[in-house]
């Protein structure tokens, strides 16, 4: 067993894990953060995406021991303490970017990474390509793409530039 220390949703976390424990297992089974989902066992579906040191990562394809010292943010870490939703969550609600909701935590985390890493604008094409690692089996992606585009001006506090690349 290994002792690991990391920061999860802004709080220090300490855990004892096996070498083989996946980050998603640490989050769900030991830290009881069950908003991060497991939708497949082949690293393809993206329901388990979390932010690790500012990058969107499939937490089912990273060992917990590899997250030693990392800053991890999960879906539970997005809303404000008073319950105010993160702009990305709010836009998923506004644009009905979900049906059953199973893929939503991963979609929201990937959407935030996409918006944050494109400060000069984000095209529909870039959003669709950016979601290649997230699979939705209910609604199709149209409203998810709309929600992410709508979150861009809110997260950057400015208008989306026209014809941005």
């Amino acid at each position: 067993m290994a002792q690991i220390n990391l920061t999860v949703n802004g709080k220090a976390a300490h855990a004892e894990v096996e070498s083989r424990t996946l980050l998603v297992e640490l989050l769900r089974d030991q830290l009881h953060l069950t908003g991060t989902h497991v939708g497949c066992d082949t690293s393809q579906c993206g329901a388990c995406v979390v932010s690790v040191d500012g990058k969107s990562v499939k937490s089912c394809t990273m060992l917990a021991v590899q997250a030693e010292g990392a800053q991890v943010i999960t879906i539970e870490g997005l809303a404000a303490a008073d319950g105010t939703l993160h702009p990305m969550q709010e836009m998923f609600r506004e644009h009905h970017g979900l049906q059953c909701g199973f893929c939503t935590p991963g979609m929201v985390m990937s959407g935030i990474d996409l918006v944050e890493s494109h400060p000069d604008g984000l095209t529909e094409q870039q959003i669709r390509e950016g979601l290649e690692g997230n699979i939705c089996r209910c609604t199709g992606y149209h409203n998810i793409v709309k929600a992410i585009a709508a979150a861009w001006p809110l997260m950057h506090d400015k208008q989306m530039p026209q014809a941005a690349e």
Partner: protein
Amino acid sequence: MYDFEYHKPGAIDDAVKALGADAEAKALAGGMTFIPVLKQRLAKPSAVVDLAGLGLTGIRREGNALVIKAMTTHREVAMSSEVASAIPALAELASNIGDRQVRYRGTIGGSLANNDPSACYPSAVLALGATIVTSRRRIAAADYFQGMFTTALEPDELITEVSFPIPEKAAYAKFPNPASRYAMVGVFVAKTAAGARVAVTGAGNDGVFRHAAMEAALDQSFTADALKDVTTPESLMNGDIHAGTAYRAHLVGVMARRAVMACK
């Protein structure tokens, strides 16, 4: 997943020693193939040696070569201005590997050590005549790839960096499997001072290979038209549920012509 011992050495020598001391130990780079393999219980290593602490990331220009350290991620290669100015085809190739989350963690060294027959990087390394630099020697691309999932690497030998000679122009064209995004067929074409070079991944039944007939045709005239009568033997092709051998042989020609047209 079977359990294993986890080591995270801070120096290349220590990593080599850990791998040399235990025949069942395996190196972990980005883990984008290896961790799924562990999850499926297709491998049962006694120990996993994590290479993340060895300082093996970075990209630099060295004379007429572009040198990429082994733990540099696909994302870093795709976003690098150094790569974009020296070998834009390589940045383009890296930007289309897997998906966004795979590109954040997957590494060039991991991809080359694994030598998946459908991986993108082996085609660039072979077409550009790159040199694989390891913890003990320098290996020419032609000697490095030895059939699918097989390389010249010894069990306790680690890739430290890859040195790519900068071509006059190059391009990579890939027909991705729509589910896995691996290359069903990927063709890397380069125009170098020594002539045209064409390497094909995803298609061959023994991993990445150079296409001598296409190289000869492109040496006559470096145009897509020069390839229109060049065929690819079906007997060399891999066939599976995604594409039969005839289809793959056809796609090799289509992707090669697209790559020639896209060369810059």
